[in-house]
């Protein structure tokens, strides 16, 4: 068995900080940051936290699979609030979003990956 060469921590940091529009009051308060480890592989996402308090949520995505994957965060209504862009096999990426309480979906929007199982839900609490 050959080990899969996990992408170097050093090479792999693709930091996408997309901050959603927020009220002025929110902006003045420094929101709590919660990190969520997410593993992607064919064809599933494993999120190591299934909920987080409202504020900045950092999705740390590691692609353990053979194919490229991306992570798209959608509201329950299907509105897209952020995506990592394609994460190559063995690589990692971070997506930081300011999320309000509610239910979100994590999906891979490459090819038919979502239909094949790469979708899971994520809750943001008060």
């Amino acid at each position: 068995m050959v080990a899969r060469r996990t992408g170097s921590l050093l090479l792999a940091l693709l930091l996408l900080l997309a901050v959603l529009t927020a009220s002025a009051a929110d902006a003045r308060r420094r929101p709590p940051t919660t990190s969520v480890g997410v593993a992607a592989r064919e064809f599933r996402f494993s999120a190591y936290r299934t909920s987080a308090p409202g504020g900045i949520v950092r999705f740390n995505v590691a692609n353990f699979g053979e194919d490229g994957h991306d992570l798209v965060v959608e509201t329950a209504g299907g509105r897209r609030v952020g995506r990592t862009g394609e994460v190559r096999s063995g690589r990692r990426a971070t997506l930081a979003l300011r999320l309000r309480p509610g239910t979100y979906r994590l999906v891979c929007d490459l090819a038919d990956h979502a239909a094949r199982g790469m979708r899971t839900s994520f809750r943001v609490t008060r």
Partner: protein
Amino acid sequence: MPRSVHKGCDDFRQTSAGVRERWLGAPLTRRQALAGALGGALAIYAEQTMPWARVLEAAQARAAEAPGARVLVSVFLPGGCDLLDTLPPIGAYGRYADLRGDMKLAAPPALGSTGLGIHPSLAEGAGGGVKGLFEAGKVGFLPGIDYANPDLSHFHSRHFWETGLVTERAAPGWLGRWLDRHGARDNPLQGLTLSSTLSPVLATGSAPVAALESPSDCALDVWAIDGRQERQMLAAWQRMAAAHARGEGPRAVHTAARLAKAVGDRLAPYAEHDGVDPLAPPVPYPQDDDLGRRLSRVAALVAQPLGVRLAAVDASGEFDTHDDQPRELGDGLRSVSQSLAAFQADLEARGVADRVLTLVWSEFGRRPQANESSGTDHGAGGIAWVQGARAASGILTDYPSLTALDPDDNLKVTVDFRKVYCSLIEGWLGTDASEVIPNAGAYGRLALVR
């Protein structure tokens, strides 16, 4: 993303940085630019107090050891590069168009009278990119390259290519094994990976090799000091490293300590300083392109008398084109074409093109039939090429049939990659391939070198 070792700037650091600045401002340690030194249009920076004459002397002595030694550069396209879109078969365009449907290349430029076309991205770059190099007789394509019963796992297949062994066992790289056999005991720069981590192709059993992003990454640097104190510190390090050591472990430690300093010393003149890059290439490379930047360093270091024999570089593009292949492959090949064309022009400008041969390879090919997402899945029968002033040019292997596919509907393999390795070892490096590739006699040989 390599991190700076200097990231922790706090009060002590700042204090000493302030002192450093004053030191650097003093005439004592001002570095001096020496233009037009060895290897063509290159500026060497050396400190006044560490005489540049000595740097050059040592360099010349080293060059005299192996004048004009040949260099082999490995460029890896990660992900499994598609043959059909890289070299579309114009002679069988109808069948190609059927297989590829909407994602097909509409009117690929022809590759001379070969009956093949070439991806338009490969015509980008200086002098017409890789297409231009082909037309100038400096590229030999190897379509259909793979091995029998291809394993379509990236990890497995990559490992086979890296080691030159179709086995899942851990092993040194095929170029690493060549260095174990024919390399020097004392020069890590003979096997150079342009990355912060060693390329598996160049992993050795015993010969020293080096991995670096840039010559600026190599110094033994104590944060608190600079200038003369740094030289005092390094002299102490040298004394400790030179101490007699008995036993395998202690000897390895002392050897590594000496070599670490030697690499730092040898590359110090080439490190960026005060925003000036002594390795700045004489020809333009693509902007903000990792592959181009790394290749430019390979060209510059090869041109210096540092004893570089082998180098490994990964392309920055995405070749695992399961979806949106037209865009992804186009972007990936554009970077490859622009970077390799600049690299070749750079080698020629530096007068070393005759002794550098480049092998471009990927771990497998892709399925001839497009998938539903304008992409292609892992397949067999890929593409590689050799490039260089001395490279055999043309289409050097049989292009796989688009109608007679293998039982899995993949392209049939027309050449084993180990045949190419054996041919490079014997035809370019000039040594017996069977020392490195088991059962080398079984693969036959290709003329890859003029």
